[in-house]
């Protein structure tokens, strides 16, 4: 599950079409190919054209210049920052949760996973309003903190970056927990016992055996929550202030309020490129790690 995100396609031998089996295979793949062409490739290409089209129909790059300058650039940077923060926090909490769940007996692990995942079935809108109730000035969180005489309470937990990151992290958490849990389940616990038998203490076992074994899962989980956050709309829009406007909100405004489709298309393409950049980053990091290992081994 974790590997699929980062796995690269195997190198294809030439003269592929020569084999009869391959031709039959293409026939089977045809429905999927058509589906992807119509519902995926065509919309992306038309968005791309839209983003390059001037009002008089000629080709232009000025929508991109718009998208990457001034207020739009700061929205873009905010989006990346909030997404990175969300990825970090959902990784940390996801790791702790998944690690705890993976140590439970199968029955209890199932129950715990249900508790983690079920909120995801509830509409994001409902959950976001739930957070707004909890995090408000007179909400449960601030109320409790105030009763405990925590200095500074009530805190401003809404309509700022804290609120947005709390909201998006709670949305992303099920994904990271699911991904990390499946990777952690796949780790042979007896390997840890083997390390202990050779004299490794708990910290060493964690650092040198457990962590490297779950690292691919961490990379894909972090990437997934980062990418999902990039284009996330409801929670930042409802729980953030003006300074937390994210790119999805910007696109929404351009289309709904300004009827500015070309600019929105350019923003959309930028978002897509950001996603690719994220994928590339993880790929570079993992292959760098692999090559470093190889060098140290030789």
């Amino acid at each position, binding site marked *: 599950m974790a590997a699929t995100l980062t796995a690269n396609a195997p190198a294809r031998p030439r003269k592929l079409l020569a084999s009869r089996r391959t031709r039959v295979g293409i026939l089977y793949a045809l429905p999927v190919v058509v589906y992807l062409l119509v519902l995926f490739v065509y919309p992306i290409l038309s968005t791309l054209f839209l983003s390059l089209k001037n009002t008089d129909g000629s080709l232009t790059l000025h929508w991109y210049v718009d998208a990457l300058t001034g207020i739009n650039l700061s929205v873009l940077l905010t989006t990346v920052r909030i997404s990175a923060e969300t990825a970090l926090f959902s990784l940390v909490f996801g790791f702790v949760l998944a690690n705890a769940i993976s140590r439970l007996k199968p029955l209890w692990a199932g129950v715990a996973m249900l508790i983690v995942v079920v909120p995801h079935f509830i509409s994001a809108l409902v959950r976001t309003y739930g957070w707004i109730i909890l995090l408000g000035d007179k909400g449960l969180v601030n109320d409790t903190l105030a009763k405990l005489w925590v200095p500074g309470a009530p805190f401003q937990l809404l309509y700022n970056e804290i609120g947005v990151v709390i909201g998006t992290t709670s949305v992303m958490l099920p994904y990271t927990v699911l991904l990390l849990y499946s990777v952690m389940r796949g780790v042979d616990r007896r390997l840890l016992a*083997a390390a202990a038998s050779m004299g490794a203490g708990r910290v*060493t076992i964690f650092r040198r055996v457990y962590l*490297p074994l779950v690292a691919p899962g961490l990379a894909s989980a972090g990437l997934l929550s980062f990418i999902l956050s990039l284009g996330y709309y409801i929670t930042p829009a409802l729980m953030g202030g003006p300074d937390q406007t994210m790119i999805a909100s910007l696109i929404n405004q351009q289309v709904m309020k300004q009827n500015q489709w070309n600019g929105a298309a350019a923003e959309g393409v930028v978002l897509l490129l950001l996603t690719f950049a994220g994928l590339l980053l993880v790929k570079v990091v993992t292959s760098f790690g692999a090559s470093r290992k190889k060098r140290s081994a030789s």
Partner: protein
Amino acid sequence: MAEFGVVTPSVKVAGGKLPTATGKPLSVVALRKTYGDVVAVDEASMEIAAGEFVTFLGASGSGKTTTLMMIAGFCEPDSGTITVGDRDVTRLAPQKRGLGFVFQQYLLFPHMTVSENVAFPLTLRGVPKDEIRRRVGETLEIAGLSGFGGRKPRELSGGQQQRVALCRALVYRPPVILMDEPLGALDKKLRDQLQIEIKAIQQELGLTVVYVTHDQEEALVLSDRIAVMRNGLIEQFDTPRELFERPRTPFVADFLGAANFLPGRVLQNTDEHTVVRLDQSGGLLTARRHELASGTSVKVAVQPGRLRACAPDDGFCTGTVETATYVGTLVRAGVRIDGGDAPLLRLEVPAGRGPVTGERVGVTVDPEDVNLFPVEQGG
């Protein structure tokens, strides 16, 4: 990682000689473990000498693995003590015992190369880098794995992986190496080959090994001494020869020698011999002297390989050959003894002059090769 340096001061000693040659590397006293009402291990005691290869042999559920796990520290005994060298390690965590362990499932670290796997226990002990490199190289060479250092475990065969696991367990010269059915996952041919290799490495380096297996042959090939276990009890702890020739219980005679058992009663004792009248045929069988009173009900145990065919009525019993299977150098024969419905008496005789199906034969045996076990009354 200073704590490990204290635990195993031996690791800093270069060279192949075992530093704990004085004193017993491992002793176990009255070890007991229960799971609910089930006694997994009952009062297991033994002392293991330096350089000795000891095997716990038994069927599954006999307590052999539990005993090993308690020595390793993966399972805590209810009572009893485990001493490694001069240290009482009974309640210590596995990582503080300084022992080596080879698992049946190899359990190599998949994210590390072969060299890194073998180097792992050394890095924990703060051994300098160039010494790690040297010792890893030496150890891999001993196991015939030179040139495999850069590979990942998944690129190796099962036999090679287990060799790496062995290297990883012995590279830091633990005073005792524990092995839990290390060859259990391999096919027969590879198992035979690795048995010889393990034995050779053990003898060359003077390793002290505690080994667990359910395979009698494996135990006999490898071990200096074997602890035969059943139902949590050590039935007998002895050299293979003693276990074979002088089993102390019918179980040991059966488990190791696959002995024939014949019911009988002690007729008389002479200075050197004990004569038994067999219940079925009424024939007289002479055994070496046992301290058993006349009239005692006994089980006579004789291994198939020690029985010989002779002319009818010349031996302690006579019967008809019912089966005769040629198995290369041997013929395995089953003889139906006259005057009873006992199981077939199993013989293993050299091929060539072996009996033929339907032939009338007598069966004889050297008194030295007969073991008598008194039958408890009512039992």
